[in-house]
């Protein structure tokens, strides 16, 4: 490998120091992976949990992709009233923290529906689909927005329903990739399934690492890598560059279809219901107005303090992913992705243990370790955004930029062209950081404002009204952020 290439791998620095080095240090220090015989037996006892995890993750990934595909085809292929509002509502359910989402879904369906033996998993799948379908929709809307102008114009010459069917068929390859990416992100899911009473492998790893047999936690985490590696194996050949160009068609020429408008209006119902439920629950009694007002103000200021940190973390993760994708370093991207698909507690605890003796006390009050862990957890978001951002630039444009010096071509030509993809990815990253509980629980310094953790604890102690107030503020922030995601896609979505 040339020296220039080694220098180009600087985006891996956060993930090396935040994940791989601490993990290796702790594994070697404690000899955690030594007893392979007993390890195999312990993993054997967790096979049932692994099967449940995979079943839930696969079902949720496929259903979320299917729903996202329908949403994307309807939004990209027709025009009608209030499309920007509909798109914001469709994306809002992802940007609302999981705890608030679970609370609202359980309030609508009833907790008992989610408690029976088989329906436990159904409940987990429903919540995961509600949360992740917007991401599938956004990815596929992005893919539809990249169709070459002539293909798009040709589609507008077909009869409306045939055009929609053709659009759906055109999006099937991207939808399969999207399902693969969602599967990678859903395998380590632990919070939402826990609200439906489903134990996933991530939860078991967390439990073993914190209060049980640490070695078993490590071995289970390693076993989790098998489905992850298999998924990555199928995804990697799909990550090749291809010629694409932005369509400049706008909404002129797209059909108006009343039935599609109705379907899209129905699709906004979950998000609207969620916000209405939160608003009703959050509404204080007359005697509690002053207290509720101060609580709302305090949660609002806590969230405002946390947003810049979330922005910084998300930006670093996304720029690292884009830089590696732009350089064509596929294996480095896989290295970047891996911490995302392992339980958050694994990296957080390893980082804590590896740095405990060398960190100066002054750092105890700063969220440095938390931020580093969250950057590592956003690796897959950065990598995915990087891939898409590289693919949206037509080959002819990219080739022209290769005759400039590398830095000039990258930052003056390709980076500005990638921004329509990178900015929504940063917003998605902000939402994930704001809703993250696992690492925050372990690494947040005392007194650090953590709305998602506060929400989690309030729901745990059944303080629904106060929880709803925080969730409502987060939901409003989510809707605001969703407009940033929708803006680049609105060309087709109007």
């Amino acid at each position, binding site marked *: 490998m040339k020296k220039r290439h080694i220098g180009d791998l600087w985006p891996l620095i956060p993930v090396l120091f935040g994940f791989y080095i601490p993990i290796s240090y702790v594994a070697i220090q404690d000899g955690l992976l030594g007893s392979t015989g007993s390890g195999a037996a312990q993993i054997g006892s967790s096979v049932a949990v692994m099967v449940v995890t995979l079943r839930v993750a696969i079902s949720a990934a496929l259903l979320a992709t299917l729903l996202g595909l329908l949403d994307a085809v309807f939004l990209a292929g027709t025009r009608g009233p209030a499309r920007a509002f509909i798109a914001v509502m469709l994306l809002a359910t992802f940007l609302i923290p999981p705890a608030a989402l679970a609370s609202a879904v359980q309030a609508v369906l009833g907790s008992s529906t989610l408690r029976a033996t088989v329906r436990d998993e159904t409940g987990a799948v429903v919540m995961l689909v509600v949360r992740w379908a917007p991401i599938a929709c956004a990815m596929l809307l992005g893919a539809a927005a990249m169709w070459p102008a002539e293909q798009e114009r040709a589609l507008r010459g077909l009869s409306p329903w045939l055009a929609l069917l053709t659009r759906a068929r055109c999006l099937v390859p991207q939808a399969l990739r999207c399902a693969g990416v969602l599967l990678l992100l859903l395998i380590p899911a632990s919070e939402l399934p826990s609200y439906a009473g489903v134990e996933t492998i991530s939860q078991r790893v967390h439990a073993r690492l914190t209060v049980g047999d640490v070695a078993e936690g490590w071995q289970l985490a390693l076993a989790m890598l098998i489905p992850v590696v298999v998924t990555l194996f199928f995804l990697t050949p799909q990550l090749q560059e291809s010629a694409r160009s932005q369509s*400049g068609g706008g909404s002129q020429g797209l059909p108006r279809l009343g039935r599609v408008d109705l379907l899209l209006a129905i699709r906004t119902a979950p998000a609207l219901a969620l916000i209405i439920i939160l608003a009703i629950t959050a509404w204080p009694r007359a005697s509690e107005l002053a207290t509720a007002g101060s609580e709302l103000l305090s949660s609002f200021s806590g969230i405002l303090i946390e947003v810049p940190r979330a922005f910084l973390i998300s930006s670093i993760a996304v720029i690292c992913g884009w830089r590696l994708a732009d350089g064509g370093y596929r294996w480095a991207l896989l290295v970047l992705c891996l911490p995302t698909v392992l339980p958050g507690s694994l990296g957080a605890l390893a980082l804590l243990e590896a740095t405990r003796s060398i960190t100066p006390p002054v750092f105890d009050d700063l969220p440095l370790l938390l931020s580093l862990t969250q950057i590592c957890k956003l690796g897959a978001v950065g990598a995915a955004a990087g891939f898409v951002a590289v693919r949206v630039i*037509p080959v002819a*444009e990219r*080739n022209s930029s*290769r*005759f400039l010096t590398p830095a*000039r071509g990258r930052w003056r030509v390709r980076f500005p*062209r990638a921004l329509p993809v990178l900015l929504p990815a940063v917003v998605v990253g902000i939402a994930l950081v704001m809703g993250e509980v696992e690492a925050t629980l372990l690494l947040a310094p005392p007194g650090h404002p953590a709305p998602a953790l506060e929400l989690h604890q309030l729901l745990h102690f059944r303080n629904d009204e106060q929880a709803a107030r925080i969730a409502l503020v987060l939901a409003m922030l989510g809707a605001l952020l969703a407009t940033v995601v929708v803006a680049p896609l609105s060309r087709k979505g109007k």
Partner: protein
Amino acid sequence: MMQANDPALEVVDLIVTRGSHSIGPVSFQLSVANQLALTGRNGAGKSSVLQAIAGLLPVTSGSIKIGGQSVFCGSLEREPWQRGIDWLGQERGLWPHLSIEAQCQLVARDGGKTSGQIKALAQLLDIGDRIDRLPVALSGGEAQRAELLRTVSGGGGLLLLDEPFSAQNQDGCQRIETVLDQECQAGRSILLALHQVDSERETVALEEG
């Protein structure tokens, strides 16, 4: 300093593979301040050879020298920006977020044309009043001439032009010819891929396969 009869480009036994299709071996030479056209049927591999010389397509075997320096030979492979080339592709590659003038100035930074020279060339190409515009505000023919303007604004000694006349009417073709002649007189060498046989230039005909 390169002299008039020195080779600006030497291609020896070049074999390029595109998918399952192999092109070559191809050998030819282009002298300094001259023009050479690669011609052939659709699918003969004109664009592939040009892309391989530019470093945009992997080369299976052979050697490429530009300005007397080897840019591809065995394990040695220089990056496109290190080859001293200015490139015009077959498909439109204007960067949509920058005005034409900004794009020309960007590529001209390393010993390319001055601002005044760019404006004069723009006048010659009949886009003098449009170089402050974004590419989206240009017609197909104007966009192609604007991209040619960006290409000649660079400081490379070798211009690689893939079908530079494809979207032009007679007047546009004439203007492009004038600019290319002017660049040749200034000491630059030009390799073109052309669909039609050109009687005014030295040509190398590529056979399919």
